[in-house]
């Protein structure tokens, strides 16, 4: 197991719109499995990644019902990665930018997500070993 580090990610993209959100989730999964502590600052549309009200649906183009489709819901992926971190005893801190939450009405997030501000991103970055910013287009 690699030496434990604290890594910060800042992200902007909402779910279901770009490949960037998928790559972020892949990175978080790898980082947690590697045993690192994780901070995520979700800015702008990324506050919808852990949105609690995401719902699965069927896929009529493929004739699959909701259960068969087992649609990706990013809130579930995040919850699963959080659970992995918890079992490993590592930290996983997800902060949604509060004003971004307000203007989008995205205030219902899954447990473990907290509301914050850009000052949290600065603090996370200052107190972690490295930071990766995944901007949007």
């Amino acid at each position, binding site marked *: 197991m690699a030496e434990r580090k604290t890594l910060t990610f800042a992200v902007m993209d909402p779910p279901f719109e770009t490949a960037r959100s998928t*790559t972020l989730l892949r990175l978080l999964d790898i980082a947690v499995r590697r045993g690192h502590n994780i901070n995520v600052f979700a800015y702008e549309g990324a506050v919808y990644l852990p949105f609690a009200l995401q719902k699965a649906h069927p896929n009529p183009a493929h004739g699959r019902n909701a259960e068969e489709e087992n649609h990706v819901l990013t809130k579930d992926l995040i919850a699963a990665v959080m659970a992995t971190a918890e079992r490993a005893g590592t930290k996983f801190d997800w902060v949604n930018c509060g004003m971004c939450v307000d203007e989008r009405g995205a205030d219902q997030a899954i447990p473990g997500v907290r509301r914050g501000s850009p000052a949290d991103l600065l603090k996370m970055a200052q107190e972690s070993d490295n930071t990766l910013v995944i901007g949007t287009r």
Partner: protein
Amino acid sequence: MSHYLLIESRDPFDSPDTGFVHDLSRKLVEGGHEVTVFLVQNGVLPARPCIHSAALTSLAQAGVKILADDFSLRERGIAASSLIQGVRAAALDVVIDGMAGGAKLIWH
């Protein structure tokens, strides 16, 4: 000297700005820094032999290590064995290991 890890998610068919990563990488290598360009998402497209491959091969010849996310390659039907000279497939873990190892990361 620093290790730079430039993560290129854009491709030259869709974005004229991939030159930014090429230019910056060359300059950093010339300055004695270790530079890795990690292609991800559509950024792996020029790793398949195509009209934009020469620029990537040239970058590799300039001393830049170029890796392509194995999942992104498979997703696009690009076999690791068919990659252009100078590019090899690698797991996304490289990014996390780079972060943990203190590389300076730039996502493009």
